[in-house]
């Protein structure tokens, strides 16, 4: 009851409510623009949180995530182009419904399912996060170091199906994190005499550069997508009969979204497709899938909205982001000096309560705002891509300058953006690199702290059963991924030999 009273106080005395509503709108608008995923929408607004109080900053990022998941379904339904990967499964039946003149119904099912998924995901977040974080009270420096290594190993092995490239990206990220002043001895590392590098490289610059700028470079020269339906579309919320019909699909979406959100590297895309397949398998109207099935929209939209909250569980409990967007949220926490884990709940409980309260407000307001904001989203989807690119660049340079009032930062993110573009071309994933930058200091500081305690003896890691468990798990993940990658390469080679 104390927590409830504190949450209500936060709602009334802080700008949580306007921040939540404003960024719900931003998330929907950003998500509706193809090419701007939830992580990019969050990365674009991340610099603005620099000057805000921690509660507002976290709420802004979390509600942007929630809003963008619905926003991404708008172009998926209207112009067969998902606003982000997590809405790709919605295209199958959503666009088919639009072709049948039922676009409003499709958008209504997407919106309603998004609310269901968000509420369920928020409930899971509230119920599971604090108990899990209490496990971290047992952690010693060796445990934290091993946890960082495990987190990087999992993300490297699960993202993009190439462990080697994922590992390389993670290591490069950790190398970037070593730039600056060594926290223990005070000597400068890899600064090359540049005063701008003495304070190190802020993760936010890497996040915005890799996610936002590289995407703009990748889209350069691509043709416009064409306009959405000329007729005005209005959202039609599902009737009670339809709500009953899609109930099972939504339940499947909730479960798959929870499981995928808990797994580091899972993300909304996998949850959406998995739930679509399972909903089809268990549906009484299986033949309707692919031809404008309401369940075909309900399942993936419920799943990806559930992930928007459950991906925060491993982040808040252990500091391991479950998705790209959660990684951006971690960047937001670090900007304000907030470290995920049990201490976050003990020393900064208001931040957590604000996050819960803001997310609840945004979820409940989602229906009304989703209906009101649709014309703006449709207008934006129809804007010529060159103008959109220009405005996004303008947003980036304006936002980044707020951090240090430094043009150096702007130049730096463009350089990082180009590196990110090259990473895309050569198939290197982003998330391990971002995690390397974010978790690198955690791994190094706890590694050195551990050896300080043991007088330089690495055996201290073997004395901590939690650290041993994490390290064994990391080795298992790496070996399993190597074996899988090797086996896939062999199969490809045999297929080539046959053809």
């Amino acid at each position, binding site marked *: 009851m104390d927590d409830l009273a504190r949450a209500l106080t936060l709602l009334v005395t802080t700008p949580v409510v306007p921040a939540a509503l404003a960024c719900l709108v931003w998330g929907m608008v950003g998500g509706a623009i193809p090419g701007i995923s939830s992580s990019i929408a969050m990365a674009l607004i991340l610099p603005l949180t620099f000057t805000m109080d921690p509660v507002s900053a976290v709420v802004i990022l979390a509600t942007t995530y929630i809003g963008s998941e619905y926003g991404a379904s708008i172009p998926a339904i209207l112009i067969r182009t998902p606003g982000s990967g997590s809405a790709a499964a919605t295209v199958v039946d959503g666009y088919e419904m639009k072709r049948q003149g039922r676009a409003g119904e499709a958008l209504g099912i997407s919106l309603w399912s998004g609310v269901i998924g968000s509420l369920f995901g928020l409930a899971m977040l509230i119920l599971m996060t604090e108990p899990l974080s209490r496990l971290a009270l047992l952690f010693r420096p060796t445990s934290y170091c091993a946890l960082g290594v495990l987190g990087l190993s999992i993300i490297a092995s699960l993202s993009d199906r190439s462990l080697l490239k994922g590992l390389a990206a993670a290591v490069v990220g950790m190398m970037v994190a070593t730039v600056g002043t060594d926290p223990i*001895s005070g*000597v400068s590392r890899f600064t090359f005499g540049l005063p701008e590098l003495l304070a190190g490289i802020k993760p936010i610059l890497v996040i915005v550069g890799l996610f936002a700028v590289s995407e703009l470079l990748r889209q350069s*020269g691509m043709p416009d997508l064409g306009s959405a339906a000329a007729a005005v579309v209005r959202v039609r919320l599902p009737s009670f009969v339809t709500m009953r019909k899609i109930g099972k699909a939504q339940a499947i979406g909730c479960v798959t979204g929870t499981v995928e959100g808990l797994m580091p590297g899972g993300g909304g895309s996998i949850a959406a497709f998995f739930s679509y397949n399972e909903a089809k398998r268990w549906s009484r109207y299986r033949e309707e899938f692919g031809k404008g099935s309401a369940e075909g929209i309900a399942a993936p939209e419920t799943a990806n909205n559930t992930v928007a909250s459950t991906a925060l569980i491993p982040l808040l409990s252990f500091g391991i982001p479950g998705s790209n967007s959660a990684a951006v949220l971690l960047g937001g926490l670090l900007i304000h000096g907030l470290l995920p884990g049990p201490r976050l709940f003990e020393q900064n409980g208001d931040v957590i309560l604000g996050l819960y309260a803001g997310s609840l407000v945004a979820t409940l307001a989602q229906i009304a705002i989703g209906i009101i904001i649709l014309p703006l989203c449709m207008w934006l989807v129809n804007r010529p*891509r060159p103008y959109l690119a220009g405005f996004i660049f303008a947003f980036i*340079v304006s936002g980044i300058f707020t951090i240090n009032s430094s043009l150096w930062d702007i130049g730096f993110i463009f350089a990082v953006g180009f590196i990110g573009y090259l990473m895309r*071309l050569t198939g*290197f994933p982003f998330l391990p690199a971002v995690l390397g930058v974010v978790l690198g200091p955690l791994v190094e500081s706890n590694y050195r702290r551990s050896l300080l305690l043991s007088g330089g003896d690495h055996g201290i890691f073997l004395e901590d059963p939690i650290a041993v468990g994490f390290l064994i798990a990391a080795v298992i993940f790496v070996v399993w991924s190597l074996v899988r990658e090797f086996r896939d390469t062999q199969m490809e080679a045999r297929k080539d030999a046959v053809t």
Partner: protein
Amino acid sequence: MPDRLQHRSGKFIAMNKDVLGGTILLALAGAYYWATLRIPDSSLSDEVGAQGLPRILALVLAGVAALIVLRGVMARKQAVSAAADLDDEKDALPRRALGLLAIAFGYVVVAPLVGYAVALALLIAAVAVYEGVALSWRVAAVAAGGAIVFWVLFVQLLGVEQPQSWLL
């Protein structure tokens, strides 16, 4: 091009990228390790030292990069060599991205000279024209209007300082 050749050509390009990417990473690992030799020692240092983890990272990266290169070289032997044409098509993309990057860096150069609003308008207009919009009064109007909106949002409403002009 028949599907099987398309498939093998695509694999050839992918494996070339592996060799290129791995080679760049090997060079990066070498340069990073060389830079660790320039990190000064300190009497305040701990058992590991400021150079400890960086050297481990350099060695791990070198090992991983070597494996990537090796995988790329081994896979190349199985691919068709007639992929040069496809490579030429792909080469246009990095040049295009570099052009856009040059415009973006142009903002960094121009902003201290003409100030935030003017530089922003120029950025929006330049990106729009580069991305395919014909140069016209409409572009200028959209760019100017957009710059004003951003100026109001960031400078007036959010109270955030933006680049000032040395000249104006």
